[in-house]
């Protein structure tokens, strides 16, 4: 009989905060900086209280200078520090894109292997809060286009906690995307939580009829859909990619070899996206396993509108997933 594992209930926000606090306690090279991470306690209250415990040097408020504080993180990492740079939202990361793409992602290569950049960038991503076009981007997949960085997308309590440590231990830049709608979600976390393996995707629900490949908040919607579909006898296998770069191809390819149908649910835009990439890899590696063409549910290709009904229509929804799965499993080629 399995021993009962002790857990505590927490929020996603609490899990991220606990991970940051533990990192600050464990390694004096670690510090966090960004806009309002200190006195304000973090725009999403993730770093609340940390400045009191660790002081303003290690929980460092920055001016609104995304490019320079991301670049400062790169420089500090090069001297031996282990910075966690918080960019308030992915939308503002556009202002730091030069440092991310032209320096962090390229420095190791263009220096012929001399200068690796052990930098962690955390940011929030995603729509669904009626914040309109400039505050609703989901650009995880877009960042995954860039060789030289790693892109993590924690959707569960264990990943919200467990991805930070391996990210900090990584010798190269790691970008962690937290969907801000997840911060209030609750769940169980081990009383002594552990690091997770960031190299592997995870099967979050097993099934035989179809594979859904997804990540972040779309994972929750997909699991909800799978639960509903199970009532009608449709067994969906749900795969949480977790890491968008490098992609763990084996996990979803093995699943497709079992289910022979694949649906990708991606909150990013459709064209030139991580969903296009995965669909292509399926074509390249598992074409003859497929009983039906790969399908996708993505964000509509519009800037996100403010009005609630329009925003809902623009983002992938559980109902859409249910309908698409039914269509796919009932179809016969």
């Amino acid at each position, binding site marked *: 009989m399995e021993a009962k594992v002790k857990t505590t209930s927490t929020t996603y926000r609490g899990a991220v905060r606990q991970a940051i606090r533990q990192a600050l306690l464990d390694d004096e*090279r670690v*510090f966090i900086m960004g806009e309002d991470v200190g006195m304000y306690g973090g725009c999403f209250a993730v770093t609340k209280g940390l400045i009191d415990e660790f002081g303003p*040097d290690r929980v460092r408020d*920055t*001016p609104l*200078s995304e*490019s*320079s*504080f*991301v*670049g*400062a*993180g*790169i*420089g*500090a*990492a*090069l*001297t*031996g*520090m282990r910075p966690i740079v918080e960019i308030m939202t992915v939308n503002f990361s556009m202002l730091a894109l*030069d*440092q991310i793409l*032209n*320096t962090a992602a390229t*420095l*190791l*290569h*263009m*220096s*012929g*292997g*001399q*200068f*690796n950049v052990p930098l962690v960038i955390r940011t929030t991503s995603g729509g669904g809060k009626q914040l309109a076009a400039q505050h609703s981007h989901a650009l995880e997949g877009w960042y995954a286009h860039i*060789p*030289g960085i*790693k892109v993590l997308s924690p959707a569960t309590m264990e990943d919200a906690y467990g991805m930070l440590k391996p990210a900090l231990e990584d*010798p*190269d830049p790691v970008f962690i995307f937290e969907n801000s709608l997840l911060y209030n979600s609750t769940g169980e976390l081990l009383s002594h939580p552990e690091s997770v393996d960031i190299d592997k995707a995870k099967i979050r629900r097993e099934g035989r009829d179809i594979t859904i490949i997804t990540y972040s908040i779309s994972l929750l919607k997909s699991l909800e859909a799978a639960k509903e579909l199970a009532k009608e006898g449709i067994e969906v296998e749900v795969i949480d990619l977790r890491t968008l770069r490098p992609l763990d191809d084996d996990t979803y390819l093995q699943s497709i070899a079992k289910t022979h149908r694949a649906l990708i649910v991606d909150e990013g835009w459709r064209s030139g996206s991580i969903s296009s990439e995965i669909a292509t890899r399926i074509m390249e590696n598992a074409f003859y396993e497929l009983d039906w063409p790969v399908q996708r549910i993505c964000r509509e290709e519009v800037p996100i509108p403010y009005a609630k009904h329009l925003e809902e229509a623009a983002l992938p929804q559980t109902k859409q997933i249910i309908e698409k799965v039914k269509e796919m499993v009932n179809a016969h080629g």
Partner: protein
Amino acid sequence: MTASKKTKTNKEKKRTPGKANGSIDKERARDLYRMMLLIRNFENKSAELYTQEKIRGFLHLYNGEEAVAVGTIPHLSEEDNLVGTYREHAHALTRGISAGSIMAEMYGKQEGCSRGRGGSMHLFDKKTNFYGGNAIVGGGFPLAVGLALGDVMQGKDNITCCFFGEGAVAEGEFHESMNLASLWKLPLIFICENNLYAMGTALGRSEAVTDISRKLDSYNIKADWVDGMDVLAVDKAMTEAVKYVREFRKPYFLEARTYRFRAHSMFDAELYREKKEVEEWKKKDPLVLFYKRMKKQGLLTEKDKEKIAMEVDMIVKEAVEFAEQGTWEPVEDLTRFVYSEPEEGE
């Protein structure tokens, strides 16, 4: 410590001690002249090799600006950090990166200081804390801020020296980084190589306030400017800068007013400036001026000049030979250095 005592045994870090204008001696006069001539001849040779298609990509030459690198960089200790620009052959040579490994880099050979992955614009060297070689104008500012921040947080007393052209002053990162450097009291020396043209755009056509060092008032950063054609003036100004930063642990800004004799890059037809203007500036050639002055003071002789020219020719010749004999990295290694490789035994 004096110039003649810059022995290898002394652990004092300065390679060529910063000495005020007027107190120069023979050895130091030879050192400064030799380094400027090495830069000049190394780059003239590079231009020649470019036309022979031995070197490709972009090649930005420093001719005319030699006094800036040579007057400043020797003041840094071995532990100090240096962030250069894409016109950085002079920064690299003065910092002590071998001429051979720089030339090999421009040939694209794996013996190059960046294994041939960087080329002319991306010279790197971990041993001398030489952080490039940055080809995004203004991109070096945040990096320099971070190097200084990291050092301060670890209790290291290093200085970070950041070079950039006056064109970079128009970038948003200039504003952000000056503010951060001052706000966080970071030991940084910003050296603005003002050669009057951002590629082909004259300073007056790109900046509302052309007196660059004046801008630093608004960041509460101490700033000065110097005649960048006069190596001793630069040397003196840098002495002040280093003294200030080491003592007060605050940033310092030095604008060196200089001029680029050659085109911006090998693709530049120079439509934006008069030949006459270039000729006028060439009268202020830092090598010619310095030699004349030293000769007058009896610190350099015609014989010294000839001897140094021979030494420099030999270094350049050997650098070219080293690059010619260099090898190409196997294509199978193409995807290396995108991510760090596991250490041996892992």
